C-alpha cells in the first residue's frame, strides 16, 4: 500500500478494466477480498474478474449503504434492500453470481430472498414460462408429469 492513495482505500478493477476507489471497510464486506487483504497478497489494485463495471458499481453501492447504516434503523435498510434487488432478470443473475463468487453475504441473502419471493406461490407452468424460457406449446405438448408421491418403500 505504498501509493498516493489515502489510507484505508482500495482500488477495485472490474473485468472490463474500469477502476473504483472504495474504502477498505466497504471492500472487505466481500469475504473473498477480505481474505486477500488479510493475507496481504493484495497490491493497491485488486482485480475483480468475472464482474463487469456495471455490476461492480451496484455491488459497491449496496455495500456502502450497508456500511453507513449499520447503526441506522433496520427497517430502513430492509426497504433499501428490497428496492435494490428489484431489477431485471439478467442484472439479477449477474449480481447473484458476483455476490456468490465474491462472498458478500448480506447481498446474497437479499437477492436470494427476492428470487424466493418471485417463485413463491407460483404454479409449475408459470415458473417454467417466466423463468426457464419455456414456450407455451412446449408445456401443452409435454408429458412432464413426474409423480413425486410414487410408492417406493422407505430404505
Amino acid at each position, binding site marked *: 500500500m505504498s501509493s498516493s492513495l489515502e489510507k484505508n482505500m482500495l482500488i477495485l478493477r472490474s473485468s472490463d478494466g474500469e477502476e473504483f476507489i472504495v474504502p477498505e471497510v466497504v471492500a472487505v464486506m466481500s469475504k473473498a477480498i477480505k481474505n486477500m487483504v488479510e493475507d496481504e497478497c493484495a497490491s493497491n489494485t485488486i482485480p475483480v474478474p468475472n464482474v463487469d463495471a*456495471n455490476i461492480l458499481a451496484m455491488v459497491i453501492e449496496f455495500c456502502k449503504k450497508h456500511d453507513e447504516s449499520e447503526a441506522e434503523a433496520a427497517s430502513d435498510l430492509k426497504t433499501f434492500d428490497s428496492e435494490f434487488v428489484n431489477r*431485471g432478470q439478467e442484472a439479477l443473475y449477474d449480481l*447473484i453470481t458476483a455476490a456468490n463468487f465474491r462472498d458478500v453475504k448480506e447481498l446474497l441473502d437479499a437477492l436470494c430472498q427476492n428470487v424466493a419471493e418471485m*417463485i413463491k406461490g407460483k404454479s409449475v407452468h408459470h*415458473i417454467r414460462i*417466466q423463468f*426457464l*424460457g419455456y414456450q407455451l406449446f412446449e408445456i401443452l405438448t409435454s408429458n412432464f408429469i413426474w409423480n413425486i408421491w410414487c410408492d*417406493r418403500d422407505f*430404505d
Partner: protein
Amino acid sequence: METRSAKKKRLLKTENETETGEDWISDLPDAVLHHILFLLPNKSIAQTSVLSKRWRSIWSSFPDLDFTTTTNSVGHFSSTIIKYSSTRKRVHSPLAQGMDFIIPVLALRDKNSDLRILRFCAQLSFSRLNSLIRCAVRRNVQELDIEVATDDYFNLPRCVTTCESLRVFKLKSRYPGFRLPPLSIMKSGFQSLHTLSLSLVILYQQSSLVDLFTASSFPLLKKLSLDACFGLKNLKVGCRGLEDLTLENCFQLNDLNILGGKLEKLHVASCFDAYSSNSLVKIEAPRLKIIRWEYNAITESSCLENLNSLHEASVGFFVLHDDITVAKRWSISNFLTGLSHVESLTLESQCVEILSKNKHFASVLNPFNKLKTLELCTGFNKHNIPALACLFRSSSNLHTLIIKIANDYKIERRQWNRELWDLSNSGEERYWDLQTQALKFFLHNLKVVKIQGFSECENDISLAKFLLKHGKVLEEMIICPGHYNSRDTHRRERIKSQMMEFSRASSNAKIAFQ
C-alpha cells in the same frame, strides 16, 4: 447504469429473438439454488423438482429438510393425540399423511448428498422413527429436531449418541415418553453436540443423573434443556462449556447441583418435590447473568455461591402449605442472600407472601447493595406492608421501583375516603412515617416509581403519598390503574386530583396517570 442494462437487454433480445427470458435461474450454482429454496416452504421446494432434470437434482441434494412447515400445525397435532390415545387405534389423520410425505422424500434423495437439518413433527411407530433417525445419521445430519407421538414408550436410538456430525439434537415426545440408553453409552457419545433438548423423558429406572453431565462428557455442549423428566431425582450438571441451562417440570427432583464456570443463563421452573424432606439445591456459577426461578417447590436447603456477575434475577416459589418449616425459611433466606449481587430483581407474589408471613426475614434479609431495579408482585394487603418496608430497607441504592398489584376481590381492602384524607394520618400512613429514618438511604436514591394495578384503597394511596412526601430525588411516579367499574369514574377523578396536591419532597417529581 440504467442505460447500460437497458442496452444489454435490447441486445440480448435481438440476439435471441424471443420474448421470454433465458433460463438464468437454472444456471446458478447449486449452493445458491439451495439458499433460495431454503427460503421457501417445503412444499414449494418439492414442487420445483418437477421443473426439469436440473431442478430434480437440486431437490434431491437439498440439505435442509424441515417438514414442520408441511405437516400439521400443533393445534391439529394435540387434538389427534387425544383421539389417538383414547381409542388406541390408528386413526387416519393429517399426521399420518405427513409421514407418508417424509419417507418417500428421504428415499428419493441423492444417496451421496449429506443432510444438514432434519426437522419433523409426526405420529409414527417406533421402528419407523428408528429407521428415520438411522437414515439421517447415515447422511451425517447436523441438526435433528424431532417431535413425535408413538404407540408406546420407546428407547432413544443408540445411533444418535455415536453420530459424529450431530451438533443440535432436540427430541420431544408428545406421548407417551421415551427412555435414555444406559448412562455409560450416553456419556461417551455426543462428542460434537452444541445443543441438547429433551422433553418427556421417563427416568424411573435411572433416577439419578449425577454422573451424566460431568466436566468430561459433552465437551462442546453450550445449551441444555430438560423438560418433563419423570422420575428424575438427582441431577448434577457440570459441563465445562455450558452457557444456557433450562430445567422445567421435573416434579420429582430432589437434589440439584449445578457447577458451571461458563454458565450465563439459568431457568428452573416447576421443579422439585414439594413433599420431600431432604431436597437441596446447590448452584455455583461465577459468570451467571440471568437466573429465573419460577414455581419451584421450596427445597430444604439451598446454597448459592459465587454468583458475582448476576445481573437479573426473578424468584417465585410454589407453596404447598401456608406454614413453612424452619429449615425451609432458612433455605429461602440463603437463596436470597445468594442473590445479593443482583442489579435487577423480581419477586413473584408467592415470594412476597412468604416474606410477609414470616417475621423471621426482617432480621436476616441481606442488603442488596447493587440493586437498581426492584419489581414486586403482590396482593398488597395490610400484612404485606412490613415486608415491603423490609425489602426497601435492604435495597438502599434502588433507582427504579415497580409494584404490580394483583387485586384479589375476596379480600376486602379498605377504601380511601374523604374522612381519612381529612384526618391526614391513617394507620398505614403513620406506619410509613415511622419508617422514614430507617429508609433514609432508600429515599435518597429512589428516582422512578411505577405502580401497576393501582386502586383507590388506603394501602396504595398511603404508599404513594409517603414516597412523594419523602422521596428526595424522585423524578417520576407512574400510576397505572387496575380494573374498575365505570361507576367509579367520578370518584377516581376526585382522588386523582387529591393526589396531585400531595406534598412532594422533590421539586421536579412528576406524577403521570396512564
